[in-house]
């Protein structure tokens, strides 16, 4: 049979070496096209989408999506951080501005104070102090100009007003130096006072504006923070949901077909080759299902051919045994007529020869029947015919048929059946055959002592045991003896002969009754074979 060659040629997809599979365009034409597969309705939606590309593509896509979500969360975080940093810088700049404006205000007041002090007490110290104040002011203005580049118009005005203020203040000091204090006082009252007020107003305006800006900035950064918090939370939630959905879709697209495959394989294992596995996937699992289906088809063919071969074998055995038995029947028939004296009384020597012919013929017939029985059981052709029977009568029947064998070997043969057993149900003829095989073996292998047949009722079962005083069987051999054509390989069995089918047949019969058979023995101490079958069997076990 060319099974393996056929299957591998029809299906040469190398997943690892195929570069297109990564792109989700797996060459589906490489899969043996199967009507059931193509006709399988592809589910719509996300799950449906998850069915087409290869598993690798699906997994990589899912990880990429999750990765993208992580990166976007990171980017959003970085952007928020940058904005917060900018806001913080703005606030710091505004604070510097405010500080500088306040310095301007402070210095203006001090100048005014210095000029007033110089007017009140005009000497070199107060005058030098006032002048130092005026010089200091240029530095303050530069600083303001540096930190508040955006307030050009107001600053220009401040600078203009201040230039006037310094000019007036310097003039007032010059007047004081020249001893014209009254004039200076006049100038101070008339010009310096209002100028200082105006400067204060202007700087106040600047401070107010900067403070308002700062409050707005702090507010804005607070809003930005809240917004980015919301954004991160939303993206995190979205990625959580997306991951769940993706995971669900992919795992369903993996788990469902795996479950279907599992069930299909179970069916195949149970011997049902008729059904095909149908998964909607067109990925590696779809290919696996196609593989399983083609393997199943081949198994089905193989199974059918095996079944047919088995049928042929059984038919052959049935025919052969009939052909073998026909001449054997003639041999046994004529032997019996000879021994019955139909052809006249045979001389003693001839009688003894005919007895041997008859005995060997019967032995041969027994062997042929055993082979036939076993082959029928193996082929499942032997059906039990279940009926009520009396255990006592069954055991007595076996006793009667082996009585003479035991007597020939001068062995004791005893039976122990409990009185008044309720009627049993089973295949009486087959159970008698099993018991007969056990008793026959016991008599065959026992040279002195006795063979004892015992029946016990145990719960819903009957236990039949056959105990002998023969050579016993060691443990290693006990495991093999129930297999066909297995005999304990020692000189005793070689002398005794037999095909080794009796125990195998007994075991099959007992098992068909749903029972079990076993042996307890020690070398040199006899053996006890037992089997237990249900007292009332309503349906054949297997």
């Amino acid at each position, binding site marked *: 049979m060319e099974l393996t060659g056929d299957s591998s040629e029809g299906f040469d997809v190398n997943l690892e070496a195929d570069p297109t599979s990564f792109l989700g365009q797996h060459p589906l034409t490489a899969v043996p096209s199967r009507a059931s597969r193509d006709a399988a309705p592809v589910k719509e939606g996300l799950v449906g989408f998850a069915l087409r590309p290869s598993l690798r593509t699906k997994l990589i896509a899912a990880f990429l999506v999750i990765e993208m979500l992580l990166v976007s969360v990171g980017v959003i975080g970085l952007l928020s951080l940058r904005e917060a940093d900018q806001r913080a810088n703005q606030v710091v700049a505004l604070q510097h501005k405010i500080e500088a404006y306040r310095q301007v205000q402070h210095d203006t007041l001090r100048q005014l104070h210095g000029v007033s002090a110089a007017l009140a007490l005009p000497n070199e110290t107060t005058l030098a102090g006032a002048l130092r104040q005026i010089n200091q002011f240029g530095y303050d203005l530069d600083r303001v100009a540096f930190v508040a580049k955006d307030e050009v118009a107001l600053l220009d005005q401040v600078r203009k007003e201040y230039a006037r203020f310094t000019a007036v203040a310097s003039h007032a000091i010059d007047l004081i130096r020249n001893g014209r204090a009254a004039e200076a006082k006049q100038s101070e009252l008339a010009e310096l006072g209002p100028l200082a007020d105006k400067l204060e107003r202007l700087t106040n305006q600047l401070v107010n504006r900067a403070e308002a800006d700062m409050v707005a900035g702090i507010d804005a950064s607070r809003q930005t923070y809240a917004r980015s918090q919301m954004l991160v939370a939303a993206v995190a939630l979205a990625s959580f949901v997306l991951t769940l959905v993706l995971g669900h879709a992919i795992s369903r697209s993996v788990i469902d077909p795996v479950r279907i495959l599992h069930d299909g394989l179970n069916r195949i294992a149970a011997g049902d080759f008729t059904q095909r596995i149908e998964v909607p996937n067109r990925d590696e699992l779809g290919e696996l299902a196609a593989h399983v289906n083609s393997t199943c088809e081949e198994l089905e063919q193989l199974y059918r051919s095996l079944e047919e071969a088995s049928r042929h074998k059984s038919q052959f055995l049935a025919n052969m045994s*009939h052909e073998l*038995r*026909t001449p*054997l*029947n003639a041999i046994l*028939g*004529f032997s019996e*007529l000879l021994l019955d004296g*139909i052809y006249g009384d045979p001389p003693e020597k001839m009688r003894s020869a005919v007895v041997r012919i008859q005995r060997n013929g019967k032995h041969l017939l027994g062997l042929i029947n055993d082979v036939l029985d076993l082959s029928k059981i193996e082929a499942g052709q032997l*059906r039990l015919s279940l009926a009520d029977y009396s255990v006592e009568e069954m055991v007595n029947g076996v006793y009667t048929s082996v009585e003479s064998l035991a007597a020939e070997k001068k062995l004791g043969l005893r039976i122990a059946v409990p009185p008044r057993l309720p009627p049993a149900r089973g295949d009486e003829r087959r159970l008698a055959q099993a018991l007969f095989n056990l008793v026959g073996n016991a008599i065959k292998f026992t040279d002195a002592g006795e063979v004892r047949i015992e029946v016990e009722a145990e719960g819903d079962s009957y236990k039949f045991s056959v105990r002998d005083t023969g050579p016993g069987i060691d443990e290693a051999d006990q495991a093999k003896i129930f297999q066909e054509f297995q005999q304990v390989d020692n000189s005793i069995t070689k002398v005794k002969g037999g095909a080794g089918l009796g125990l195998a047949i007994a075991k099959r019969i007992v098992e068909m009754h749903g029972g079990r058979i076993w042996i307890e023995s020690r070398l040199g101490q006899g053996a006890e074979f037992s089997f237990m079958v249900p007292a009332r069997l309503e349906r054949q076990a297997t």
Partner: protein
Amino acid sequence: MRSKRVLVVEDQEDNRQILRDLLANAGYEMIEAQNGEEALLAAQTQSPDLILMDIQLPVLDGYEATRRIKAQSDLRHIPIIVVTSYALSGDEEKARAAGCDAYVAKPYSAKKLLETINLYLT
């Protein structure tokens, strides 16, 4: 009184010889048929007192021959003992269904067979 006639339907010559010897020794007259059709003809023309019918026969098997004989009202009274091989399970049921009166499995003991025949002919 004429001796009782037994129709033996059997395709194997050696088996027929055994029965010839057995039946002659027991004082029966034996007529022979080698297949089902011959058996039908012999049953109609030779008025046997008992039929010993083998199952595996050429041309027409023993079941069918039994059925046809039992279907004829003038032949129905003739007892038919069916002889089957032990090999094929369900033979006894089939033989009973075909309408036989008794059933003997091969290999039969000559003594037992004679006992069964005597049961119907005395």
